[in-house]
Every structure is written in structure tokens, then in C-alpha cells.
């Protein structure tokens, strides 16, 4: 099973809906150790993505994800804007010319995206950032690709890995981003960005399930 261009656009719309639904939840998480805007930022960005994708017409996945990256970069702001923006831009260059997303291409693209995030934000694992949920997700995708798993199963394992990564941020003391200003007081709270990574992957999984059903 693969996602075609329309499938990917559907998945991105599903991401937008999920972030809209979880806007207050993410903002709540960001209130505890940040500045109470992560849900607002992500929701604003993905609403813009929806508008952009609805207006555009696309010949390959690279073009879709480039628009996503550019839109996020120009509308999310904060730390998550450049990070997610870069991630999708990097994914876009990996997916240039492709019209279908399968497990290997997804794994490669997300890995490239993660590299972009790390190059920009310089976060290590356990710094309590989105890297903590994205890294295990990338590993799960790569494993799934090497095992020849179909997209849906690959996404299932990525979502589970992201969930574990996300939950692993709770006890951590933040060393990157705004939460790091809190020092010890940042422990005991789940990282908002690690949570939005999980929500994004979950929404893509939902779409993959619907498309195969």
C-alpha cells in the first residue's frame, strides 16, 4: 500500500484537523514549561497549509512538501516554525519527482527531515524536544523499511515509537528551547513539540488506514 499525491494531501489535511482539535492541549503543555503558544502556532501553520494545498496543483510529492515547508516556515513562527519548516523542506528534496509514498521513501524522507531539525536546533536526544519523539519514529520507519513492511504497519510502529519518545520527555530536564530556562522546574512535564510530532504521525496513520480500508 502506498499514498499517492492526493493521499498525502489528505493526510496533511488530517494533520491539520488533529492539530486544530489538539490546539488547547498543546498550548496547555506549553503553558507549563513554555509560553503557551505551541498549539496556536501549529494550528495556524497547518490551517495555512490546508489553504495552500487546496489552492495548488501538484505533479510530485516534492512539490507538495515544499509548499508545506515554505508555508510552515512563513506562518508558524517561534521555534517550531523553522524546525518543522526545515523538516518538510528536507523531506521535499528527498521526494522530488516521486508520485507515491511507500515505506522506504517515507523512512528516507523523515530521516532527512530529522537531520534538518538537528542541524538547525542542535538538540541531542533527551534534551526534551521534538527530537525525542521523532528520533525513535525514524528508527521505527527504517526498521519497517528493512523488514519490507507496508506503509500502514510502518506508520503504526512509528506512532508507537513516537508515543514512547514523547512520554519519555516527562521526567527530563530541558536543555534546549524555551523550557531550558526553567532548569529543574521543567522536569515532570511532557514536551509540547514531542507531542505534536506524535499527533502528526498519528494523523498520517489514520489517513493511511482509511485509504487502505
Amino acid at each position, binding site marked *: 500500500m502506498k499514498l499517492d499525491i492526493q493521499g498525502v494531501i489528505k493526510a496533511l489535511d488530517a494533520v491539520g484537523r488533529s492539530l486544530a482539535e489538539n490546539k488547547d492541549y498543546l498550548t496547555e503543555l506549553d503553558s507549563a514549561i513554555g509560553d503557551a*503558544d505551541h498549539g496556536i502556532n501549529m494550528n495556524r501553520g497547518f490551517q495555512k497549509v490546508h489553504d495552500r494545498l487546496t489552492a495548488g496543483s501538484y505533479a510530485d510529492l516534492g512539490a507538495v512538501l515544499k509548499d508545506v515547508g515554505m508555508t510552515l516556515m512563513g506562518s508558524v513562527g517561534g521555534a517550531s516554525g523553522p524546525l518543522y519548516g526545515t523538516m518538510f523542506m528536507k523531506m521535499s528534496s528527498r521526494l522530488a519527482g516521486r508520485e507515491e509514498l511507500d515505506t522506504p521513501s517515507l523512512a528516507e524522507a523523515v530521516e532527512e527531515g530529522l537531520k534538518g531539525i538537528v542541524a538547525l536546533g542542535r538538540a541531542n536526544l533527551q534534551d526534551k524536544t521534538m527530537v525525542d519523539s521523532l528520533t525513535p519514529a525514524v528508527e521505527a520507519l527504517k526498521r519497517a523499511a528493512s523488514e519490507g513492511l507496508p506503509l500502514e504497519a510502518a506508520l503504526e510502529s512509528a506512532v508507537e515509537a513516537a508515543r514512547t519518545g514523547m512520554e519519555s520527555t516527562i521526567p527530563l530536564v530541558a536543555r534546549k528551547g*524555551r523550557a531550558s*530556562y526553567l532548569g529543574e522546574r521543567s522536569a515532570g512535564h511532557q514536551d509540547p513539540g514531542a507531542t505534536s510530532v506524535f499527533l502528526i504521525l498519528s494523523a498520517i496513520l489514520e489517513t493511511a488506514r482509511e485509504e487502505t480500508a
Partner: protein
Amino acid sequence: MKKLLNRVDDVVVESLAGLAAAHPCLVKLHPSVKAVLRADAPGDKVAVVSGGGSGHEPLHGGYVGYGMLDAACPGEVFTSPTPDQMYEAAKAVDGGKGVLFIVKNYTGDVMNFQMAADMLAGEGIAVEQVVVDDDVAVQDSLYTAGRRGVGGTVLIEKIVGAKAQAGGSLAEVKSLCERVNSQVRSMGMALTSCAVPAAGKPTFELGEDEMEIGIGIHGEPGRKRMKLKPAKEIVEMMAEAIVADLPFKAGDEVLAFLNGMGGTPQMELYLAYNDLANFLAGKGLKIARSLVGNYITSLEMQGFSITLLKLDEEMKALWDAPVETAGLRWGR
């Protein structure tokens, strides 16, 4: 949480429209991105550009004008602006002498400004950046994001803006900016929380007898929560940490800046300034210049911050130089 607004998504643009309407001789809005530009830009001088999340007014839009900023890029409330804003703003105010970005040290701001700088450099525009990080409430470390940029930003924008106005080169303006940043220290506290309009409720809750010490300017939690104390004790606790950090030494000339977080009555700010002046006198520090009022705020938060800048002769002269902006004005 009550706000004066129309649509919650429009607070920033409508507020910018009001700023421009109130000060047509000082500023104009960029035609395509959210940016406040000097009305007479571009000038034949180094362009000084800053920006950051909204909600800290008059910072930064209120500091655009003669002798201070050439452009300010406001993000959504408490959210860093995006690279296209800095990119377009810089292009609009660059008069060929180059652009200095003054960036408060927040991951988002730093990354977004960096991207804009990369884009501009790609087009052959000379861009330099200085990251302001004056908040002693944050423990500094190589492994973290470092210290936040807070009250010192206002003083830096004034002094550096005056240098650019006086014809300083990009290298001179940048190096002055770094020097001022290295000599300035701040710390803040809050009595109440602010509320991000789009969030619709206070960012944090404080008990009726509590205060948050070491608060940032985004309603982010501070270093510790304590029982409320008399103003004098609060001021001394904060000023002690600031003085020890640089350290400031007896005989130093300082600019003492007592800043309101937005919701504190001016009467209380001057009362706290009185305690600060007494404390500094006791330390043998000489207040050569002062500033008291709401200059870098957190929406309606009640509280204040203290900033001390160790002055030298150049900084004093540049502080005194004429400035004409919505938020700071003298000599013109």
C-alpha cells in the same frame, strides 16, 4: 480574561494599524509582510532591525524611528516572527550600508533571524546579528539555550540605534552592540500572569500571596515561586543577583532601568525604583542615567524587572542622543 479586541486572529495586525495611524510621521507599515518601518526609510546609514513576538509593546515597533530602529518585525503574540518578515523588512530599510539584526536569545527568534540572514547574505546584502542575553535569572550553560534576552534589549536598541544614526559602520555598530550586551544584566518578577489572547486564559496561576521570581517576558515560569514580600526585599533580592553577576563594582556608573511588565501601576514602579536607588547607593554604584516605566512588557502581567547597564562615556553620549520614536523620545 478580558481583552479589547475584535477578532482574536487580528490583534497583531489591528494593533500595528493603530500604531501606524497614531505615528504617521515616524513609521509606516511594510506593504506585504508584518513589519514596522521608519517612515523615511531607507536612510543613508546602517539599518538596525529587530523583532520578536508581539505582546511586549512598546518593544519593538514603538522603537522604530529617528535614532533607534529602522524596522521591527512583530510575530504573533509571544511567537517569533518568520524569516520572510525579517528578509523583507531588511530589504526595505537597507540603504546600502548593511543591516544589523538585534535578536533576543530565544530559540525561535535566533533560528528565524538566522534564516533571514542567510537569505539576505545570498543576495549580497551585508547582514550582521547580535544576540541579546541579559537575563541573570537563567543559569548559563554551554549545553542549553543560554540566557534570555529581556530588559537590556531596550537599552541596546537605543544606544546602538544612536550609533547607527551617527553614521557608525556596520562593524562599529555590531561591536558596540556586543559591548553593551556584555555590560547589561536584568532580572524580572511577576505578581500575576498574563494571558495570550488566542489561549484565552492566564498562562499560569499564582496564589493571592505568591510571586514568581526570575520570570521571563512571556509568562514562562521563573526560577522560583515565593511568598510575596515587601517591595524593598524583592528589589534587593533581584538587584543583588544582578550586581553579583557582572559583577558591578563600587564606583561604577550605571543606567538603572526599572521596567513595568504592563499591568503594574506607575505609582508602584516609582516606589520600587526608590528602593532600587537606595540599594544601589548602598553598594556605591552611581546612577548616571535612569529609566522607569513600561518599556518591555508581557501584555497585562503585573510585575517588574530591573536592568543595570554599566556605562562608559560613549554609551552615555549615545543614550543622551536625540531619539524620536513612539516609545522613547527626547531631544527632538
